[in-house]
């Protein structure tokens, strides 16, 4: 009886085994499901991870290394004073629904994003635009109110992809773009399927079909990879299992960098935390390597300021706040806060939940008690981020080049420093690369000296893929799973 059952199960299993041949399909795992598929009206990284460069394209696009390359704009001219950008659009580009891509679509897209009723999550990207004009069918002229060094960079974001007025209404559920893949269907809660766009203007991708599967549970993700249900998991949620994948010849572990500076934010409105000595004490109490090892199983780079280590302008300031519990205790004694209790709010990601537990233990060592509250994102956004009702929280700031947040006094950690604000204002006006570097160094030092928050580590991008797949992005300059260069080697 048992024997027969086994045979039955084996037969069932065989049905599920795909045929061995050169594969042109891929199943990509993602932790979160995109709430919708319109990156111009939602902030979720998952939207970009499905659509960026696969379905939608912008005037410019990011390369895997974070460089800004031509996208739908073949080339551009910039006026002397840096306020007028003239984009020369590619010819013969069609949207997936067959409508032609023209300068009008660009005007429509940029105007829509700037509109009063716009629901673009990154509206500030477009803040510098004064007007947009279609010069002819394939030329667009964008006038800025003031020069902006990062404008081409901004136009490469997922929030700035070009949509056509004919299909924009339905893009949330039936995305229509100009990319190398067409949307096939979305089984909500399970997967999004794409297929190769035969009319693509550029080089045809190697893959014919791509499926994004949404697996939020880390152990389910592990099982899915192990069982071969998923071919690649570019942002694998369980770093503790990577060791096993490394040891397994079937898999390749891809470790790269992200723009995510992970910090222990402090609320400067809190009486104790407004004292720099307390902030320094906290910074010294923290052993970054323990957090990286304990929470991320070794993946991550310690940082001493709010800047990505892979950026050429990065300064290694970790020694400023080296692990020194004795110094921390002294600083606390000096500040008169020997028994301090702080609330620590933790959003869902592993780095926060596990890191929070370790930080709590480390703070306890120097005499700071913490009350941990685990929160969902929605509640975290409302209470911590918008309401600034917190003492400590851990979060990874994943936007690229976002040191500017320290110049925003209303930002959730409530840090109001005239000096920092001046530095950033100057930076905005400056286009000379060397001067910019100098200013960025100054900013990095300033926030590190001020111990505005406790800087923990740069989030690593840890992906797992079938060893026969090549062309996946190693790093994540922006959230994206660009599949155009992905292929099977066997």
């Amino acid at each position, binding site marked *: 009886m048992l024997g027969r059952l086994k045979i039955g199960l084996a037969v069932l299993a065989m049905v599920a085994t795909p045929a061995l041949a050169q594969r042109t399909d891929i199943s990509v795992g993602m932790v979160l499901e995109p709430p919708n598929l319109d990156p111009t009206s939602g902030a979720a990284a998952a939207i970009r991870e499905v659509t960026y460069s696969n379905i939608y394209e912008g005037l410019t696009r990011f390369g895997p290394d974070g460089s800004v390359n031509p996208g739908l704009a073949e080339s551009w001219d910039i006026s002397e004073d840096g306020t007028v950008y003239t984009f020369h659009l590619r010819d013969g580009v069609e949207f997936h629904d067959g409508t032609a891509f023209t300068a009008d679509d660009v005007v429509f897209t940029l105007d829509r994003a700037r509109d009063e009723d*716009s*629901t673009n999550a990154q509206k500030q990207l477009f803040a510098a635009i004064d007007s947009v004009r279609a010069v002819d069918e394939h030329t667009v002229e964008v006038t800025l109110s003031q020069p902006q060094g990062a404008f081409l960079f901004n136009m490469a974001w997922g929030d700035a992809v070009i949509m056509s007025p004919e299909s924009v209404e339905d893009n949330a559920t039936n995305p229509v773009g100009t990319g190398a893949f067409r949307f096939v269907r979305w089984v909500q809660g399970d997967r999004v399927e794409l297929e190769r766009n035969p009319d693509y203007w550029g080089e045809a991708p190697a893959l014919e079909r791509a499926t994004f599967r949404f697996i939020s549970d880390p152990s*389910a993700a592990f*099982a899915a990879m192990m*069982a071969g249900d998923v071919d690649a998991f570019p942002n694998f949620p369980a770093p503790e299992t990577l060791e096993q994948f490394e040891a397994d010849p079937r898999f390749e572990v891809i470790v790269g960098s992200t723009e995510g500076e992970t910090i222990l934010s402090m609320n400067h409105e809190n009486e104790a935390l407004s004292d720099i000595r307390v902030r320094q004490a906290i910074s010294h109490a923290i052993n970054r390597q323990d957090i990286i090892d304990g929470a991320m199983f070794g993946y991550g780079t310690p940082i001493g300021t709010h800047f990505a280590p892979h950026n050429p302008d990065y300064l290694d300031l970790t020694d400023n706040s080296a692990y020194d519990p004795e110094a921390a205790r002294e600083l606390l004694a000096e500040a008169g806060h020997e028994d301090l209790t702080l609330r620590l709010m933790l959003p869902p990601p592993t780095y926060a939940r596990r890191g929070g537990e370790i930080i709590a233990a480390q703070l306890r060592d120097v005499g700071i008690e913490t009350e941990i509250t685990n929160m969902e994102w929605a*509640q975290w956004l409302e209470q911590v981020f918008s309401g600034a009702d917190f003492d400590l929280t851990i979060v990874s700031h994943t936007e690229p080049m976002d040191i500017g947040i320290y110049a925003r006094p209303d930002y959730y950690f409530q840090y109001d420093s005239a000096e920092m604000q001046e530095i950033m204002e100057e930076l905005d006006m400056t286009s000379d690369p060397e001067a910019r570097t100098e200013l960025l160094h100054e900013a990095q030092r300033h926030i590190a000296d001020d111990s505005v928050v406790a800087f923990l580590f740069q989030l690593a991008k840890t992906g797992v893929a079938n060893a026969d797949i090549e062309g996946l992005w190693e790093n994540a300059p922006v959230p994206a799973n660009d599949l155009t260069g992905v292929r099977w080697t066997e």
Partner: protein
Amino acid sequence: MLRFALQRLTSLTISLIVASMVIFFVIEVIPGDPAAYMLGMNAQPETVAALRRDLGLDQGLFVRYLAWVGGMVTGDFGTSYTYRVPVSELIMARLGVSLPLTVYALVLSTLIAFPVGLIAAARRGSALDAGIMGGTQLGIALPNFWFAMLLVLFFSITLQWFSAGGFPGWDAGFWINIQALTLPAVALALPQASILARVMRSAVIETLGQDYIRTARAKGLTSRQTVVRHALRNALIPVLTIIGLQFSFLLAGGIIIENVFFLPGLGRLIFQAITQRDLIVVESVVMILVFAVILVTFLVDLTYAAADPRLRRRA
């Protein structure tokens, strides 16, 4: 019988109305704004306000309640805030997973529990009975998510007989989906089967103690004939109640199991919707689940009446 049905139907409707109010007003106080969630950390306040207008969240609580209830009567549950598709579509798609999973688990559980419970009852006091009872105690004590974890470890990762999860969709064929649902169904069914087997056993034992069983034996029926012809049908009534309860438990209780096996079912929909503060989806799914429970209870009541002639005339 008709009057019985109508009476139950009235109390069913009242229950549903009360339930809808409880659901709506409890869920609406959950902190967190769907618009803010969707727009993330860099969004500007006026952008959030614009999105709230877009979603109709700027209207009063009571107005939205009436709109929601009013729509539900016609099968329109509104539009999901995050997915931007009709909630009814979402629910129908998810039911396509949850319902088969529930039925599958229920069938498995019944197929295991009936013979096991009957054998234990027929051999009560024997070593076999003691073994079965011990086994069912173990089954009840097993947290299903832990059991699911072990199943995946063994059958998916080590043996690779079953995929670790996921659901291909019904258009991919019947068997491949049945295969995909097998491990989750087993994880759900085993603890339930243990409960059901125990209920079955005690119901049969209790029935076997009734006078009419002695009457049947005095007529010359063998003990097996007595069990089959007389005990079984009478014992079925308490068993049916449990099956009814299990149906609703399984329909909603799959949340964790659906997570472990990343199945796109109702449970995961609701979990995800709560995180995203897609409250209209949460409210509608809870309503559907409550409705399912009440409906199943109603059907079980009707089945009672069919199984037991004494109930047909009772008020």
